[in-house]
């Protein structure tokens, strides 16, 4: 895996790359079904569809029905991946997910496109602001939030090669979002990944916003602040012992996420480390509990303080106090 390939993947963006990776998975899995609710093209699945017409299905614009059909196929032993935009799956079809993937435990993999703010000018109707919060309450549903296309590939392969049960994979970022992993690395299910082993503060983050965290980190280093950055790619189940070890070692802890303050990474951590956080300085950068403005992705990240520069400034100020 060289840097050239990874740059190319970044240029293509997570949605197109999802479609590409599914082709590799399609070659190896006889009983695979990829189903979309009229967003096959948006999921980069055109080539997949051409390569494996029998493994692809478009059910039309009907997310509730999408979940039911996927559930029936999974019951019969198919490996099923389904795609649509994050709010249409996590909210419109939420109760169907609860019954079929939660209550009945059918191992369907939901790939939620365009989560966070990545839908830009399409606006709040299309944003995935609260999907983690909602999906997290469904027992047994695993939640993944890949940082870039390489990590997405590793998560998809892990899900297709192992019996992980029902899952929700949250795609954030757009074509051109910064690469987080500049070279190949070892992905392990559930195990958070250390991106940078600094000593001055601990940054816990998830999803493609880690690309901005890395930009911030470079600026922090120039200011002689060396952060430890952990990529919490799996929000459920959370690897508590692993994270506890790191949290115990730091006084200043920063959580950064492209999700509302309610129910996302910050909530996950606060809830699990309530006593650990007691004597620490905690700072959070996330989306507010409101419907914000619309604009391009770069504008929106910056507006919400999630651009590399803003993250840098906020952390610097936080550490000063």
């Amino acid at each position, binding site marked *: 895996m060289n840097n050239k390939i990874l740059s190319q993947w970044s240029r293509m963006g997570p949605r197109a790359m999802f479609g590409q990776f599914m082709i590799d998975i399609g070659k190896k899995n006889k009983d695979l079904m990829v189903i979309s609710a009229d967003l096959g093209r948006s999921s980069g699945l055109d080539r997949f569809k051409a390569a494996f017409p029998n493994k692809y299905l478009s059910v*039309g614009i009907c997310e509730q*029905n999408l979940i*039911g059909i996927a559930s029936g196929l999974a*019951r019969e032993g198919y490996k099923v991946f389904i795609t649509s935009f994050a709010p249409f799956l996590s909210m419109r079809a939420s109760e169907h997910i609860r*019954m079929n993937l939660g*209550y*009945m435990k059918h191992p369907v993999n939901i790939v939620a496109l365009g989560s966070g703010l990545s839908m830009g000018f399409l606006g709040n109707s299309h944003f995935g602001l609260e999907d983690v919060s909602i999906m997290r309450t469904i027992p047994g549903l695993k939640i993944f939030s890949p940082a870039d296309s390489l990590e997405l590939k590793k998560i998809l392969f892990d899900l297709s090669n192992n019996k992980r049960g029902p899952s929700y994979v949250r795609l954030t970022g757009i074509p051109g979002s910064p690469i987080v992993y500049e070279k190949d690395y070892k992905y392990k299910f559930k195990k958070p990944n250390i991106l940078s082993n600094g000593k001055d503060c601990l940054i816990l983050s998830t999803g493609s916003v880690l690309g901005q965290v890395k930009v911030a980190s470079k600026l922090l280093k120039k200011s002689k602040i060396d952060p430890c950055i952990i990529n919490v790619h799996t929000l459920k189940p959370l690897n508590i012992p692993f994270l506890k070890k790191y949290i115990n070692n730091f006084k200043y802890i920063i959580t950064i996420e492209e999700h509302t303050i309610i129910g996302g990474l910050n909530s996950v951590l606060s809830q699990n480390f309530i006593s650990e956080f007691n004597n620490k300085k905690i700072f959070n950068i996330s989306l507010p509990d409101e419907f914000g403005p619309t604009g391009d992705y770069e504008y929106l990240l910056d507006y919400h303080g999630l651009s590399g520069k803003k993250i840098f400034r906020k952390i610097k100020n936080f550490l000063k106090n």
Partner: protein
Amino acid sequence: MKIKKDNLKKYSLLSSQIRETILKASFECNERTHIGGALSMVEILAVLYENYIKKNGLNKFILSKGHGFLGLLSALYCKKFISKKKLSSFQKNGSELIAHPIVDIKNGIESSNGSLGQGLSFASGIALSYKKRKKKGKIFVLVGDGECYEGSNWEAAITATELNLNNLFLIVDCNNFQNDGKINKQMNWSNLVKKWKGFGWNTIKGDGHNLQTISNALKKIHKNKPTVFLAKTTKGKGVKFMERNNDWHHNRLTKNLYLQALKQI
């Protein structure tokens, strides 16, 4: 097509057994149960479980109308899918046998339901997998007429025709009642016939308590369309004081009423 007298006798006997089991299980749990809607589907269950649904068989039955579980449970007991001991745990604290089905494949319970409008999509997924693998077998689903208000049914209705799922067989238990009373005109039997036809389904209608009619209906298969049987039924069927009396949608049977009901069936 006239069915053999022997078969008709078998269906009739099983119907009586199911009806009796419904009353008994309801009385013995000493809790409120969905009796009315269980009694309206008895004959349909009798033909299905006498003729089509076998332990580990290829045909499947999905109860989308989850609150009819007392009926399904009784059929499963009468056809020896579950033991007497298991049946006696119905609606007891901690039991898996409650008002709505909880999936338990080895005991013949194919899905968890209770939230209406979900069974048809799930059954479509199974029917699709059968088609893809060229597996024989029919996937039967039962929904209520009131349940047809759920929009997700119509999402499934569209894809089932587009996918040519002719191995999918839907039964609508048209007992003309829902939780709060009579169903609205829009969802009455004759309007439902028009609606399903309009959605491109092979549509059959008939008396949902007439064993001959049900038996003929369930045999139907279209060359490329899914089939729906709009079964006109009576809520509380068989027990005079329960028939069309929605107080028995979800209610408790006292000993007195239980004995009275037993005499009537």
